[in-house]
């Protein structure tokens, strides 16, 4: 009889990378649905385009690198990158925007660094920043939420806009962005950013229609939905609570202080936490294991750093939201964070 030999341990908890990634995708569903409700079919098309591009580029890149393509595709990591990027961009952005973004994310930010696990930056955010820097017009053309919109685009119209940049009847995205009050709508954070530079006060700005509710029509519910998804991830132990909490505290704490000092210039913590990409970033983007810190203490610092950077960029930077930049900057700090938060090894004088 021939006996099989193997190396210990012989037991494994059987949760694989692909399962982890699948859970991330599943947990993103509520947020995607809410976005679909508020911003229309475009979200779906962007998702489809992103996924197809991600698979294709990943397969080609792996093929070129002489790596087994199928095994790596099965880990679902390209899918996660694609989904995160697709839900971050304006739903009516032209098709080539998401294609360029995903291809760049997969090829340059991931495969060039050596594939899954080797990249120091979050690929989805690298793709996002590339797009934001290169195509600022397309990347800031958010539609007003469905409830405030003058236009109700059908499936076919949406597809037409994404492919040809005009509706069948010839309206451009710029024209579609007109809200019910006849003024081109911007996201709540964008409204605040441009409004403040024009000398309006916050109370004047938050009186606008985009700010109905707690933190902006549509966006608050998108954030709540991602929070729900994030809680699922926490419950499933896919992510640890340190990073999300760090991000939220990192945004909310300085916002609270600044708001109490200067209520007419600085947004309050609730608005900060429930607008823009805060929740998506806190639970889905910053928690990407590859580019995040690894120890719990390090995760805390990493999360806080992202939160603080987001607040700083939103309050004093050039962009209305800063999640992508904050994540990339924090990614840069990860080796240092990891270096200095390494726990004391057993028997080396640490406390018990």
């Amino acid at each position, binding site marked *: 009889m021939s006996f099989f030999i193997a190396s210990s341990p012989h037991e494994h908890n059987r949760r694989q990378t692909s399962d982890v990634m699948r859970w991330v995708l599943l947990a993103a569903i509520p947020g995607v649905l809410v976005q679909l409700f508020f911003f229309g079919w475009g979200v779906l098309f962007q998702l489809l385009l992103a996924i197809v591009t991600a698979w294709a580029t990943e397969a080609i890149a792996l093929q070129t690198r002489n790596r087994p393509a199928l095994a790596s595709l099965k880990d679902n990591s390209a899918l996660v990158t694609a989904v995160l990027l697709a839900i971050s961009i304006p739903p009516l952005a032209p098709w080539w925007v998401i294609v360029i973004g995903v291809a760049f994310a997969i090829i340059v930010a991931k495969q060039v660094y050596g594939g899954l696990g080797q990249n120091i930056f979050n690929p989805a955010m690298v793709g996002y920043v590339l797009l934001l820097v290169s195509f*600022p*017009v397309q990347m*800031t053309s958010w539609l007003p939420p469905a409830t405030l919109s003058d236009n109700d685009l059908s499936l076919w119209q949406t597809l037409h806009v994404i492919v040809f940049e005009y509706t069948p009847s010839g309206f451009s995205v*710029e024209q579609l962005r007109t809200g019910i009050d006849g003024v081109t709508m911007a996201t709540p954070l964008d409204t605040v950013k*441009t409004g403040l*530079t*024009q000398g309006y006060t916050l109370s004047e700005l938050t009186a606008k229609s985009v700010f109905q509710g707690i933190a902006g029509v549509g966006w608050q519910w998108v954030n709540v939905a991602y929070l729900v998804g994030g809680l699922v991830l926490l419950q499933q132990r896919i992510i640890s609570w340190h990073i999300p909490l760090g991000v939220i505290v990192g945004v909310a704490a300085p916002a609270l202080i600044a708001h109490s000092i200067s209520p007419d210039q600085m947004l309050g913590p609730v608005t900060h936490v429930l607008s823009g990409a805060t929740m998506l970033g806190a639970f889905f983007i910053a928690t990407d294991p590859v580019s995040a810190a690894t120890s719990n203490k390090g995760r805390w610092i990493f999360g806080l750093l992202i939160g603080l950077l987001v607040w700083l960029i939103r309050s004093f930077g*050039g962009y209305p939201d800063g999640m992508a930049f904050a994540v990339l900057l924090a990614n840069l700090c990860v080796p240092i964070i990891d270096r200095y938060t390494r726990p004391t090894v057993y028997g080396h004088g640490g406390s018990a």
Partner: protein
Amino acid sequence: MTLSNMRKNGLILALFAVIATALVVGTEKLTASQIERQAQQQLLSTLNQIIPPARHDNDLYQSCRLLTLPQAQQPSTLYRAWLAQKPQAVAMQVTAPNGYSGAIRLLVAVDNSGYVMGVRVLEHKETPGLGDKIETRKSDWINEFNGKTVKGADDDRWAVKRDGGMFDQFTGATITPRAVVGAVERAVEFIKANPEKVYSDNLPHCQEQHHE
């Protein structure tokens, strides 16, 4: 040993320093006039674009005067055009401090009846491909100002369209045109309101000008 080594090193290094400095200084002397001429030509070509030679018979470059605007810390430079001893137009260097990435330096030409003859950007740091459409090389947006004037102190047409004004903003960049429109408006308003100051003979000459 130490002393001789020191002496040798010191002298050689000094020798090299003297030769190198002499070389630099010599070249500087040789090229100074040419450099001056170049700067002058550069400025003149811009000035001539917005104040056509037909409108003046004086030397624009020599017409340079300094004028301190109200609430300004540094004097602005003026170039005044005369035709047959009559003031025709003035080109004024103004700064729009609130550009997207820093100040934008503009040259605004206004004729004697207060209408804009032309605007040119002298220097800016706006995002390439986005805010840089204020350059004539990139877009002719800046020509929108031609023939416009300011009516009254609070002319709300002087704003970008998004803010309800008459000037286009570029897609994606509102801050840059907003800053330019504001700066031009202030310049036009001032020139229109204060012709006597602008064309006054008592203004100080520009000194040490155009040392870029």
